[in-house]
C-alpha cells in the first residue's frame, strides 16, 4: 500500500485528562480495508484512543490525520459520513421504534429540513436485514432485550454507511451466540466491502479469531501493532496482561487460540 492511501496517520499523539497522562507518544498508521483489534488492560487508554480517532476529544500534542488531512479540519457532519461508532452501553429513555433508531444513522446524510430519501430508507432496510431485526422494526427500543438492542445499535451504525466502523467493546455485554453473529457480519463487510474496523475488544480469543491486526496498548503507550499471529504469544500476553497462557498457533485457519492458565 502506498503512503497516501493511509486511513489514519497518527504522529506523536499524547493526551492527558487534567494532569493525568493517558496516552503518550503514539505513532501509528492504519490502512483501509482491515479489521484492527485494540487490546490492552483496563485503563491502558483504549477508549481515549478511540475518542481521539472520532475527534470527540482533541490531542494534547501530536496530530491525527485522516486521509492525510488533519482531523480537526473536518466538520462534525463530514466526519459523521466517514466514521460510525458502536458503543458498549446503549440505553434510551424515549419510546423510539427500532426503525426510528436505525434511521437515526442516516442523520448526517439527510439535510436539516428534508425527509429521508429513497436511498436512506433502503440503507435502513438493508441494515435491519443484515442484523436480523426486521421483525422488530415497529417495537419500541425500550422493550428490547440486551442482545436485540445491541443489534439495533449495530444496524444504526451500518445504516450510516461509513468507511470506518469503530467498536468500543461493542459485544462485551452480549452472549456468545450474538457476539459471534455480529462479528461475522462485520468481518464479511471488511472482506467484501472494504470496510475498516477499529474495535476495542476485551475477549482476546475473539480478537484473535476475527481481527487482521492488533494494536496493543500498555500504560498509555503503543506496545505493539502487528498481525494477530505475532501478537498472541506467551511472551506478549505475559508482559501486557501479566497472565500465563499457552497459545496454539496451528488450530483453526491460522487464527491463534489462547488458553489461559487459571491456577
Amino acid at each position, binding site marked *: 500500500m502506498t503512503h497516501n492511501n493511509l486511513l489514519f496517520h497518527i504522529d506523536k499523539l499524547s493526551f492527558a485528562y487534567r494532569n493525568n497522562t493517558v496516552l503518550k507518544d503514539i505513532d501509528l498508521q492504519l490502512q483501509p480495508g482491515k479489521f484492527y483489534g485494540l487490546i490492552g488492560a483496563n485503563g491502558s487508554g483504549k477508549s481515549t484512543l478511540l475518542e481521539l480517532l472520532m475527534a470527540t476529544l482533541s490531542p494534547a500534542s501530536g496530530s491525527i490525520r485522516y486521509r492525510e488531512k488533519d482531523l480537526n479540519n473536518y466538520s462534525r457532519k463530514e466526519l459523521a459520513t466517514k466514521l460510525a461508532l458502536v458503543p458498549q452501553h446503549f440505553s434510551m429513555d424515549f*419510546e423510539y421504534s427500532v426503525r426510528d433508531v436505525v434511521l437515526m444513522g442516516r442523520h448526517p446524510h439527510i439535510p436539516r429540513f428534508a425527509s429521508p430519501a429513497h436511498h436512506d430508507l433502503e440503507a435502513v432496510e438493508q441494515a435491519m436485514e443484515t442484523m436480523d431485526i426486521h421483525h422488530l422494526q415497529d417495537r419500541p427500543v425500550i422493550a428490547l432485550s440486551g442482545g436485540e438492542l445491541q443489534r439495533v445499535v449495530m444496524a444504526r451504525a451500518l445504516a450510516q454507511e461509513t468507511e470506518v466502523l469503530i467498536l468500543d467493546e461493542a459485544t462485551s455485554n452480549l452472549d456468545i451466540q450474538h457476539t459471534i453473529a455480529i462479528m461475522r457480519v462485520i468481518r464479511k463487510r471488511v472482506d467484501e466491502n472494504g470496510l475498516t474496523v477499529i474495535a476495542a475488544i476485551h475477549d482476546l480469543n475473539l480478537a484473535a479469531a476475527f481481527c487482521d491486526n492488533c494494536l496493543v496498548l500498555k500504560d498509555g503507550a503503543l506496545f505493539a501493532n502487528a498481525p494477530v499471529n505475532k501478537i498472541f504469544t506467551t511472551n506478549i500476553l505475559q508482559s501486557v496482561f501479566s497472565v500465563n497462557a499457552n497459545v496454539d498457533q496451528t488450530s483453526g485457519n491460522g487464527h491463534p487460540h489462547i488458553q489461559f492458565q487459571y491456577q
Partner: protein
Amino acid sequence: MTGTKQLLIIALLFFTLCAAIIAATGMGFLQIAPQEVVEILWNRILGRESSTINPTFPFVVMEVRLPRILTSALVGGGLAVAGAVFQAILLNPLADPYTLGISSGAAFGASLAIILTLFGIVIPAWFSIPVFAFIGAMATLIGVFSLASTDNKLSSNTLILSGVIIASILSAGIGFIKYLADEQVSIIIFWLMGSFVGRTWSDVFTTLLIVIPGLLFTLYFARDLNIMALGERTANTLGVESGRVKKMLLVCASLITAICVSVSGIIGFVGLIIPHLLRMILGPDNRILLPACFLGGATLLLGADTITRAWLPSEIPIGVLTSLIGGPFFCYIFRKKQLAKAS
C-alpha cells in the same frame, strides 16, 4: 418518523386551541356568544364599529378577557415546550422547566421585589415583580451552569444536581424574605401560587416576543434533539454538535420559563404533563412533539384559567389548580407506566 396521523393531530390541536380561545372569551360574568366574539374580533381587525352588539362587549372582550386568555395560552404553551426541551436534553422524561431551579430563582426575585418597599424603595409592582422574577430566573440559570461547569460535558446528572442545590438555597432565601415581609407576606404567597388576574396586552406582547421565537428556535434543532436521545457521544459521531446544541437549547428553554414565570407566577405540572401525554399519543419525535406541546399546553392552561375565572364561585390561584389536578393525574400515568413496564 412523520406521518399523516401526526399532522392531523397537530391540526386538530390547533383548531381546538382556536375554539377554546373563542369559547373562553365568551365565558364569565357577562356571557357573550361565540359568534359575537368572532364578530367583535373581526370588526376590530377591519377597524369597523358594530351596531348590533351590546357596546360594552367589545371592551370586555378586547381589554379585559382577551389579554388574560392570550397570556395564559402563551404561558401554557411556553411551559410545555420548555418542559419537552428539558426532557429531551436532560434525557429524563420526568424533568420539567423547574428542574433546574429556575422557578425558585424567579420566585426569589419576585419576593425580593415585593419586600423592596419595606426598605423605602418604591418601584411600581407591575413593573418590578416581572422584571425581578426574570432577573432571578436568569441569575439562577447562570449559577446552575457555573456550578455544573466543573464537569466539561454538562452531564444531565450534574445539571439536575446543581439545580437542586441552588433551588434549596433559594427556597431558604424565600423563607427568610417571607419572615422579613411581615404584613406583605400574603402578596408573596399569592404570587408564588401563580395567577393571571389583571393581565394586560403588554404581558401578552412580552410573552409573545420570547415564547414564539423560542418555539421556532427549538424547532430548528428538533431533529438534533431526537439524535441526542442516543446519548451525547453517539450523537457527536452522527454529526450533531451536542455540547453546543445542549447549551443553546438550555438557555432558550430557560428564557421561555423565565418569561412565563415572571408574568404568571409559579404554575406547576404543565411542563411535565403535556409533553408526557402528547409523547404517549404522538411518539417522541420532537419535530412533531414540540409544536403539539405548544398547542396542547396553551389549550390546557387556558382551560384551567377559564375554570377558575368563570366557573368556580371564587377564584383560586391557577398554580394551585394545575398542581391539584396535575399531580394526581401524573401519579396515575406514572403508576400505569411502571405497571406496563413490569408486565
